[in-house]
């Protein structure tokens, strides 16, 4: 898994609640058998009009260049468990997603793919939306080791929560399957003891 330590970037604001994984990547694009290339169809039906032209009103078509932080409304990633949603966001170039609250499966999927997701208070998120609507080029730093998220102009400076296990995996680029394989003896013992 790709490591995540620190990141400096502008923010792409998506101030909509309950964004489901069907919006992030519609089902008709789930037919690939590899993990690559899903970024092309990220938010497909919001990015393009039904005639196939770009929808210039949608933020991804007008966002600051090289923005790697996606800031979204509450309950981001609800609905289908498709991990393709996390792959699409990562493949498109985002490395951090912030919301006041994530759907459980999406959160796991993101963290399993080196995509850092964390929650901030809804009031603060609304404050950031407001701030960047006036100054879209303002940069923010995400420091995983310190669990800090702050604006370079110093006006926003917050701690965020992440459990120790996920933090270490992201910082070191550790892989869950490798970890589970390393405790195979314990799993065999469990099977024996419980008669499985």
């Amino acid at each position: 898994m790709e490591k995540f330590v620190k990141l400096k970037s502008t923010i792409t604001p998506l101030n909509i609640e309950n964004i489901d994984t069907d919006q992030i990547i519609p089902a008709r694009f789930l037919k690939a058998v590899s993990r690559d290339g899903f970024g092309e169809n990220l938010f497909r039906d919001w990015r393009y009009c039904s005639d196939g032209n770009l929808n210039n009103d949608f933020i991804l078509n007008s966002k600051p260049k090289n923005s790697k932080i996606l800031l979204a409304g509450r309950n981001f990633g609800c609905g289908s468990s498709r991990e393709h949603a996390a792959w699409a966001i990562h493949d498109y170039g985002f490395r951090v997603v912030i919301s006041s609250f994530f759907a459980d499966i999406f959160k796991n999927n993101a963290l399993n793919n080196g995509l850092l997701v964390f929650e901030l208070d809804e009031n603060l998120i609304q404050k950031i939306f407001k701030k960047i609507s006036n100054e879209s080029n303002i940069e923010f730093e995400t420091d995983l080791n310190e669990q800090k998220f702050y604006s370079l102009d110093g006006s926003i400076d917050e701690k965020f929560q992440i459990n120790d296990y996920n933090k270490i995996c992201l910082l070191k680029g550790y892989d869950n399957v490798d970890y589970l394989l390393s405790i195979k003896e314990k799993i065999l013992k469990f099977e024996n003891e419980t008669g499985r």
Partner: protein
Amino acid sequence: MGKTLFDKVWEEHVVDSIPNGPDILYIDKHLIHEVTSPQAFDGINSRKINVFRPDRTIATADHNVPTENQHLPIKEELSRKQVEKLTANCKEHNIKLYGLGHKYQGIVHVIGPELGLTQPGMTIVCGDSHTSTHGAFGSIAFGIGTSEVEMVLSTQCILQNKPKTMRIEINGELNSGVYSKDIILYIISKISASGGTGYFVEYAGSAIEKLSMESRMTICNMSIEMGARGGMIAPDEITYKYLKDKEFAPKGIELDKKIKYWNTLRSDADANYDKVLKFDAEDIQPMITYGTNPGMGIKIDEEIPSSAINSSKHSFEKSLRYMGINSGDKLKNKKIDYVFIGSCTNSRIEDLRSAADIIKGKTKSPHVHAWVIPGSKSVERAAINEGLDKVFIDAGFDFRQPGCSACLAMNEDKIPKGKYCLSTSNRNFEGRQGPGSRTFLASPATAALSAISGHVSDVRDYL
């Protein structure tokens, strides 16, 4: 302090715990399908390891498959390749596959229970969020991502943080014309599409206890639509009776032994839940959704509201705009273009019976396209044996072959842009049933009656 049903089953499966991190949870049964498994197999192949316990994984093809002419090669190239990949992966790793043409093929959450693979007290996962369906048997069942599918294939375990617990009680007698789909749409409308996030739900109360297994599955199936990872119901005589003759369920003395254990799978009277909600069955009426998430539901004869809980004005208005409806309007009597009876929520034999009861001897409205997609080959056979296929066909419905179909529109079964579909599925998201499609979710009875009349109809007017 007593334990909840959830705590009891969870604790039975914890191999180890990481301090300030997840538990390592052993998985009894793993279900896979063509869409969310190929990348997981790639993962184990590139690690050069074998599937650890191939006998604990069962595969089927459902999401992508056509619902007509299943005896022919799949026309759409990418879909065909994905299904072929599943076949090759299962062959290489000795995994039992109920693929197209097999007598057990069907929607993964329909075949697990009907084959007796789903049993009380198990942990069950699948790369599909509606795995919560299997909780109807008192198992811990939830959807996972593909990285987690790879964990299960390689070690039969996943890393999982223990969720909080919520108890939802429904007590009293259900009104006539109210089905289990109405119960779950009602609950979600009360707590919103995110009201269950972070929780595992246990459904209980006198109204739940009286429900059939099929009806319980419909409720547990949609737990994810309020954000809950899963929902479960304590096993009882109704559960045991359902399981008794199922192909892979224990039999004879083995079954008696199991039932003794299953009888211990009850929440203790003094068990502590993180949240408890209670509803009166009498308050529940036939329900329908009007918006673009399953929390946006109303009684079928109610006016469309001007706000919804956990939804900002901006998001709420965006939703109504997409649906082409206005606050204050009623959905009752609104013209519809399509009716879809199917999906892992409502494609079991009981669902088909309740639709056929209403349709029998009638003809669908000429402007409505009506599709019935049985959940599995077994459901299809049962429907044909009971003559239900004829009821549907005589009424002008398409009676198709099993698969997920228009629930997520991965195959050809799509609702065109701007058209209204009254659907028995589980999600009314923007574009879920095809780009630009508009979905109203309701029970099979409501869907059937509305196909006949051509507009949103209240089953209570028919009964």
